[in-house]
């Protein structure tokens, strides 16, 4: 009887060529999986889904709840989790071990997957709703939150007051400053593409939003570099 070929399993991983004698790395560990995805190993998508899919599903469910979706058919959830795994695979090269877990680091991207599904499956819009107006105007509630918060901080925190003054000198409009702030907040929360996340809110393309952010950041930097009174802002996140 011919000997059977053993089917490889994760229960007996072979030590890698560089193993110093210690235990080999867990091939299903998130940093190993992300490294393989970044290297273009498509098989790692299945590893990600098999061994971390439950946690990705948790992020998807959280975003669905925030979008007002409390119930979802199992097959629709499956599709969203799979799309989220593929989205993580697309950006794996930018993830760094030691920070947020990938499904939180790319939470904005997963939100995009969910939002697109919600947009397709949402109830029909009221005929009186002006879609053009909705596309060009940012959500007023969001503006008020950032505007109110910024206005309060200008009075309470000296460096924020200095930022407001620098923006006035640099002729950076208030709306543009809020866009800069939101862009930065998104980025710090782990969104790998804040422009794609924010563009619909501002009614512009992602490229236009990036140019707006870049242009106004350059204006602020020039003013901060030129005037000694703005020296404390040199390392500030908006101009650094």
């Amino acid at each position, binding site marked *: 009887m011919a000997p059977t070929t053993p089917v490889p399993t994760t229960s007996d991983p072979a030590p890698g060529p560089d193993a110093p004698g210690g235990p080999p790395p867990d091939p299903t560990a998130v940093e190993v999986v992300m490294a393989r995805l970044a290297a273009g190993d*498509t098989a790692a998508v299945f590893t990600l889904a098999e061994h971390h899919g439950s946690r990705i599903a948790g992020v998807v469910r959280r975003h669905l709840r925030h979008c007002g979706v409390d119930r979802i058919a199992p097959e629709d959830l499956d599709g969203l989790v799979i799309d989220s795994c593929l989205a993580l695979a697309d950006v794996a090269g930018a993830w760094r071990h030691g920070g947020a877990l990938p499904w939180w680091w790319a939470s904005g991207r997963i939100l995009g997957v969910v939002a697109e599904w919600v947009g397709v499956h949402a109830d029909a819009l009221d005929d009186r709703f002006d879609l053009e107006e909705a596309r060009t105007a940012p959500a007023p509630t969001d503006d008020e939150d950032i505007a109110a918060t910024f206005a309060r901080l200008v009075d309470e925190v000296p460096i924020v007051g200095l930022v407001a003054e620098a923006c006035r000198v640099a002729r950076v409009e208030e709306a543009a400053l809020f866009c800069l702030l939101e862009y930065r907040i998104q980025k710090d929360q782990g969104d790998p593409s804040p422009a794609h996340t924010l563009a619909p809110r501002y009614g512009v393309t992602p490229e236009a939003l990036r140019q707006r952010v870049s242009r106004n950041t350059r204006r602020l930097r020039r003013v901060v570099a030129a005037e000694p009174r703005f020296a404390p802002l040199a390392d500030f996140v908006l101009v650094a």
Partner: protein
Amino acid sequence: MPAPLTDDAASARAAARRRHPSARWLVPVRTLCARVSERLRAGGAEHADIAAALLHARGVTGLDLETFAARAGVDVEALARAEGGDVAWPDLPPVLRMLVRGDVRGRP
């Protein structure tokens, strides 16, 4: 007949069920293979379904290409070509055909 659960007890039981391992998300293998197959086909793979099934068979083990090929007793290049969608079913090494068949049998 046991007494009906109070609201608090029912809520606690529902929360416990959500935490139970049986509530974990189960990978819909065929759907995932189909999505990966679509991507491979869009990238020009001729035998994308076979490639997706092989990628799944290796992916669930977590092993890299070289280690998996060594364990399965197949040439690394042959496995790479098959995972790239360049090998038709009749030309697959027997062990890879066995893996692909075993991969889809009985899974959702």
